[in-house]
């Protein structure tokens, strides 16, 4: 029997972590992959916020002389067919990616939470109808529904956000409904009823906050799929319209021609997309382990 080193055990459990930095350091040690994800996401957010400072040139400025210029000291990642700087477009593209990703995730989650909460808490015919609608929306792959939505709304930033948000709703609604159904039976809800709280107040003030943990886990995962779906839509020419620098758009169908002649046009935007999604996935896995230990793998 080796004696238990209580101090070391306590440190390992995070008891000695103090302050914001101590806490962050502790989390980074416990979830190294999650910390990597957080750093990647911080970089993407930083690029989006300070694009003007990092980009070094205008992402929309065209130049015939620079057409298909390979990477150089002046243009780190080369230039596209219209002579636009690829580095600048990738940096500004972080804005589009994040705006669409966060926008559609927030919109989809907000609507999904409202529907899931109503469906789970009210039950009865509301629940029945909501479940059928959720079935309908879930029978179509995310990209197919987003494609049809995007085509029917027309290409614009706002419409792309909506087109991606709608297919996300059923997944959120399902999770929130399942959680609400379980929470509804707990004693604290009965207590709230006993003191005469209104149904509305119980649902919003008592049930909703308790569904936040699974919601955060789900939303992080959806942020990744939203970014990927935006890239796919724009790649197919049905997402963000020109001249916005969208990563997916930069890889649009003509990219297959550049495989031979200008590989930098194919490699770098793809790295940007993959890195951003990889960051959200790592972060999502870590958040799931922290917030939802029962699912821990």
């Amino acid at each position, binding site marked *: 029997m080796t004696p238990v080193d209580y101090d070391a055990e306590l440190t390992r459990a995070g008891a000695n972590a103090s302050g914001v930095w101590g806490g962050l350091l502790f989390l980074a040690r416990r979830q190294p992959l999650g910390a990597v994800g957080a750093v990647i996401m911080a970089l993407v957010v930083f690029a989006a916020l300070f694009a003007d400072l990092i980009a070094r040139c205008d992402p929309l400025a065209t130049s015939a002389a620079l057409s298909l210029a390979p990477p150089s000291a002046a243009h780190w990642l080369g230039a596209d067919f219209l002579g636009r700087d690829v580095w600048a477009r990738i940096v500004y593209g972080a804005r589009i990616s994040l705006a669409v990703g966060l926008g559609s995730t927030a919109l989809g989650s907000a609507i999904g939470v409202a529907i899931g909460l109503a469906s789970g808490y009210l039950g009865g015919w509301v629940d029945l109808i909501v479940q059928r609608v959720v079935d309908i929306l879930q029978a179509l*792959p*995310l*990209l197919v529904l987003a494609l*049809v939505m995007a085509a029917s709304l027309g290409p614009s930033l706002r419409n792309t956000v909506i087109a991606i948000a709608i297919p996300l709703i059923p997944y959120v609604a399902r999770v929130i409904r399942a959680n609400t159904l379980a929470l509804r039976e707990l004693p604290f809800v009965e207590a709230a009823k006993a003191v005469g709280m209104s149904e509305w107040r119980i649902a919003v003030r008592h049930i909703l906050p308790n569904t936040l943990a699974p919601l955060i886990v789900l939303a992080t995962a959806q942020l990744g799929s939203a970014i990927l779906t935006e890239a796919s839509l724009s790649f197919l020419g049905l997402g963000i319209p020109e001249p916005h620098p969208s990563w997916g758009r930069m890889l649009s169908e003509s990219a297959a021609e550049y495989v*031979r002649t200008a590989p930098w046009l194919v490699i770098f935007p793809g790295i940007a*997309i993959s*890195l951003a*999604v990889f960051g959200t996935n790592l972060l999502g896995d870590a958040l799931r382990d922290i917030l939802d230990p029962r699912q821990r793998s």
Partner: protein
Amino acid sequence: MAAYLLRRVALMVLTLFGISVVIFVLLRLVPGNVADIIFDAAGMINPAEKAGLERQLGLDRPIVVQYGAWMGGLLEGDLGHSYVSDRPALEEIAPRLPITAKLAGLALAFSILFGVPLGVVSAVRQNTAIDYVLRVLSLSGLSMPAFWLGLLILMAFVAWTGFIPIYSETPQSLWDEFLVYSVPAAAVGFRSSALVMRLTRSSMLEVLRQDYIRTARAKGASEPAVNYRHALSNAILPVITVIGIEAAFLIGGLIVTETVFNIPGVARFLVEAIRWRDYPIVQNLVMLIAVVVVVVNLIVDLLYAVLDPRIRYGE
């Protein structure tokens, strides 16, 4: 069982009916139809001619009548006519189906062939270097857009062999076919195999903690016998259930991959039809996708009951 099956089929029909309504309405909410696109492209608009085209295509009728005509046709096996080619939609879709089916089949085979064994290895060697490498690899597989992976594969082929493996002519022999489809199938399947691997891993980890695994070890069963005969045969069940999800996942990958590799299948056709507002093609293809997803899910559920005698439906 019969009652359960009946209820599931009834629900399925209800779902498909709902999808048909949603798609039909969505496609017709849009300002602008195929007549607008054709006339915009021509650069001139003669209102009388445009109205004539709309009447000819039946676009001037009330939306309920249009929907009724589509459903009535579907029941008789008539999918309507493509606006773009003016040929029956069935004739446009049917020859493209086997192409996508082969590609999807190969991709699915690829994802299981790689995903299951790697997931087992990752679980058995939990928290070792190989587990970490495989987990990071699978997570990056899920993070890469399928079309970018396709482009990277193209690039590697060009760099090493100087030839681009995109679809140019209809393959003649079975071997030719395999060559043409295997590269894009790998591009689609890589993502799916990452998904399968993650699921196999977590399912295996769950099973490896069970008491009967300890019993098997205690009575002296060899490591491979424990891992494969005892653990995997039980861990594989939840993996099978997600093949339904997988189907939806694959379709998304097929859409972009067929575009990258220039493959004339139904998935790329859907994108083209959407761009042209070719409603008869779009609505029939989306319905087809929905039918595939819904039917695959039903089959998977039934298969589950067959494979796992503990599960009995409808009791």
